[in-house]
């Protein structure tokens, strides 16, 4: 880039955009989250065809029909996918220390829940059995982080 006789280096301009949003849970996700806090219980919802969706959305992704009965599922299950984060990005990843993202198919569910393994995360692999590590009573707020992490269970 030139300006008259001058050679100008490529230029950039810094921009920071920040705004806090507030998302309504609605009755379905709201009930799911409230049960984490009040009951230490993970609930799914049955949809057309019989599948149990966890976390529930209130509808079937297959055909758009409304969800039906609520179904309690176990707080333990099998890891079906894993991604290890060895160098978390500041303010982007949920923790500053290394951890693993996992998709967990909980017992009784037909879909997998996204969560994390922190303790012994380097040993987690597809097929690992894990169980929810709950925050104690009084500390749960009705959030997916009411489950602190999923912990590896000994191989059966």
């Amino acid at each position, binding site marked *: 880039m030139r300006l008259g006789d001058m050679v100008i280096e490529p230029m950039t301009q810094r921009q920071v955009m920040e*705004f806090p949003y507030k*998302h*309504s849970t609605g009755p379905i996700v709201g009930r799911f989250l409230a049960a984490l806090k009040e009951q230490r219980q993970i609930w799914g919802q049955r949809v057309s065809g019989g599948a149990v969706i966890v976390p529930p959305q209130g*509808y079937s992704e297959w*055909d*758009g029909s409304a969800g039906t009965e609520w179904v309690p599922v176990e707080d333990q299950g099998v890891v079906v996918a894993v991604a290890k984060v060895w160098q978390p990005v500041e303010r982007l990843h949920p923790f500053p220390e290394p951890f693993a993202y996992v998709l967990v198919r909980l017992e009784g569910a037909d879909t997998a829940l996204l969560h994390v393994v922190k303790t012994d995360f380097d040993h987690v692999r597809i097929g690992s059995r894990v169980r929810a590590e709950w925050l104690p009573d009084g500390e749960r707020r009705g959030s997916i982080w009411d489950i602190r992490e999923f912990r590896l269970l000994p191989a059966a």
Partner: protein
Amino acid sequence: MKRPVAVVGVGQTHHASRRSDVSIAGLVREAVDRALLDAGLEHKDIDAVIIGKAPDMLEGVAQPEQYLVGAVGAHMKPMLRVHTAGSVGASTAITAATHVASGLYNRVLTVAFEKQSEGNTMWALSPNLPFTAPLVAGAGGYFAPYCREYIARTKAPLHIGPLTMVYARENGARNEYAHLREPVTVEQVMETPMLWDPIRFGETCPASDGAAAMILACEELAKKGPRRPAWIKAAYTFAEAMWVPNRDQVSPKAGQICAGKVYEAAGITDPWKEIDTAELYVPFSWFQAMWLENLGFCAEGEGWKAIDRGDTRFGGRLPIDPSGGVLCTNPIGASGMLRLAEAALQVMGRAGSHQVEGAKTALGHAYGGGAQYFAMWVVSSEL
């Protein structure tokens, strides 16, 4: 239209400042469920889905259509998301109409939404654009100078803006879905704080959460019922560039052209006489007078006189926004679709308490961006 297309189902949510009782997906499904019920159809009867909303910054959910695919029953179907700022609800519906008119699809679901309570629209619409001084004007600050210019050009008396709001609120009071339903007087509007001269607080649209949906069908399916359809006689969208020299934002050229094309295709030569009611996108009171001229209902300088005479009032010569319009309800992304849907309800004879008696031909209109995007359709009770 390459082949006839009709509105066969209409659904909308109740609109409010905060629909904190529902998630975004829940809000969208409320409108979709009502449109399907209205048309006597199920998701399996729908060939394709066209979804629209205003900029993602409003709710802070990037590409919400991605997570809404399942919610709107679009799994294993063609699905498109449309973007044209505030006019998006109208251009979304028109995209759906062209999908049917093309012959590719026989029945299309179209839905648009906004959940303004999840973010802050003023912030979202006033981004600090790189390389320019920050304006932080919001929509009102952006459009107020054009309202001032309209007043200067036409010598319109200053009560016209408030009077427009009085009529809008009278209409909103009759619409069970409207956000603002309390009638007001000219004096009450005049007493509200001046936000962006000449636009007072009482002359602005509310910030609403809401969604609208329609089902459009080809002639053969539309004739199967169960309801009397609204036939889309013509539908067009036009855009204009932001910084083109000598652009007139009081009466944008793209709006004039779009209206002209729609009238021509619908066989309308005198819109004032041949259109029974119009749902115009009026987010700030003065825009009704401006659009009456821009859309050819009135000659230049005559729009405010039609309002002053009461012609645009419910029961008047040409009722404008019988639903209460954007001045009573503004879920931005859905507002354009509501204009088109309300026009359809009028010619179907199903607008309930805000039905314009004997309405056979209606215009639905929306604009967006810096008065840059225009989208309109004319619907009729007759094929």
